[in-house]
């Protein structure tokens, strides 16, 4: 987040928080929004683009499918042993492994993609975070230079924030 200082607005009501976001957008500032739960309206207001995670999962799934079949086929060919009258490479039997690994790799890629995109694990608290945001308050954090703090602060207060705080930025 650009800016040495951040202004943190704590909101009880969703519509107020949305107004707070509008403040940041209007002033062309970097901002961050915290919410106690997933609120589609809020997330949409911040970022309306679709998440890239699906592509990561798809990649994982395809890799898993290939890896699963490859594992079964290659290990089978490494020391070919006949069981019953079945072929050494018995594709119908290997579908299960391919299928399971599609899901496994898809899930693992999704997990890693999600961690990556959510920027976790991250041992550092994000600037302007307040424990109330995980309870029942919405938070709008706007980054700004020290000289703009008062201006932003005042604008946020007007949106109906319960409290407006100023904190150190990065």
């Amino acid at each position, binding site marked *: 987040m650009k800016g040495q200082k951040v202004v943190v607005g704590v909101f*009880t*009501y*969703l*519509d*107020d928080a*949305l107004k707070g976001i509008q403040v940041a957008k209007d002033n062309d500032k970097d901002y*961050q*929004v*915290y*919410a*106690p*739960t*997933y*609120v*589609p*309206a809020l*997330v949409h*207001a*911040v*970022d309306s683009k*679709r*998440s890239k*995670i*699906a592509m990561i*999962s798809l990649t994982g*799934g395809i890799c898993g499918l290939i890896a699963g079949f490859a594992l*079964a086929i290659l*290990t089978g060919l*490494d020391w070919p*042993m006949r*069981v019953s009258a079945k072929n050494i490479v*018995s594709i119908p*039997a*290997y579908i*299960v*492994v391919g*299928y*399971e*690994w599609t*899901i*496994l790799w*898809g*899930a*693992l890629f*999704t*997990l890693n*993609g*999600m961690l990556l*995109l*959510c*920027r*976790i694990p991250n041992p*550092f*608290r*994000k600037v302007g*975070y307040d424990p*109330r945001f*995980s*309870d*029942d308050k919405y938070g709008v954090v706007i980054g700004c230079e020290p000289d703009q703090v008062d201006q932003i602060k005042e604008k946020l207060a007007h949106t109906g924030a319960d409290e407006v705080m100023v904190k150190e930025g990065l």
Partner: protein
Amino acid sequence: MSTEVTKYSGDVTYHEVNETVLSMLEKPTFGWYVLLLTCICTWVMGFGCWISMMIYGLGMTGLSHPIMWGVYITNFVFWVGIAHSGTLISAVLYLFRAKFRQPIYRLAEAMTVFAVMTAGLFPIIHVGRPWYAYWLMPVPNERALWPNFKSPLLWDVFAVSTYFTVSTTFFIVGLIPDIASARDKATSKFRKLLYGITSLGWTGNAKQYKNYVAAYLIFAALATPLVVSVHSVVSWDFAMSIIPGWHATIFPPYFVAGAIFSGVAMVITLVIPLRKVFKLERIITDFHFDAMCKLILLTSGVVTYAYVTEFYVAWFSNNMFERYQFWFRPFGEFKLAFWGMAFCNCMAPLTLWYKPFRTNIAYLFVMSIIINIGMWLERFNIIFTSLARDFIPAAWGGYNFSWIDVGITIGAFGWFGMWMTLFIKFFPSIAIVEVKEVIEAPVRDPHSSVHHH
């Protein structure tokens, strides 16, 4: 607040949810310690049974020729079955946007993970040389030997391990935002550290939510076919064989339905005492029980249908081995298991058609245990009877009762119970964030259109 929303989650606010759920994590009571200790003692006893079995050999069990699979595989299938409803409630119902899932899914998922952890023990306990059980994994080794991917057992290894990995991931991912809530409310040093680490620095900012929810949807989408596949694969352990009574195409759907059936019953068994002890009546309401009972009615119907179909197929196929097998089940050596199963799974749940029973908590608790017993008997019935009477009459045999089997079976409940007990005291057993999701967000201006974006 609209009445519809109230129906799903009770008449609660964000803060109340937070308070109610996090209050479950407060200092453990004496009762909790007693429960934990009981569970630990139980599984240590079971573990002792296993050790003695390893020392003296598998002759300590009741298994014999030709009943080579017995109580352990019954337990394995039973626990895998239990595990299923967790993922079903969390993933499948998520995809279907069934809103009664929110308050119960976390517990169901925890149950899934711990049930798979329990189920996963049984194949290892079951094998003759457990110290070589890792040969079933495709581990590179100096002997240049690999496992046989044509074996249904290897499919099982892959299916169950994948299931365990994915359901654990799903479970942990779901926990992250709630742990963050717990972290922000934590007072003790230990808990602060524990939640600080396990919440992975979650803040709940909008971008995180965006990706998180998208990822969650994908997890749900991946877990759904997995639920179906895992129990299908478990059923193939039997269906892929040649034994009369096992060799049936009906097995996968039959097993999946049975798994959901037993899993939902197990959720009810666990939720009822939890709700009582932690006073969660406002979050977990009659509506949720009613919905779960309907799921039980549905799956009970499917399972009953499958039982009838098995008999029909045996008769229709005109195969003497199948016919003998399905004569043997209700009238043979293990007839008690069969009739017990029929009573518990087919007849007793019929009472749930009567609405007052569906919301009578005491009745439901008893019913859920009956169903669990019934489902254990179902697996017993499938495994034992088919093995006891197959093609060659001269090789027919019975099962020897063994206390080791009983000990290990009970020990598994202790093992499962220990993890559940620890979990409810250390992590939020109700999904805070997701329950909040179904509560309409507080707005200053009721006419604002924020909810219709």
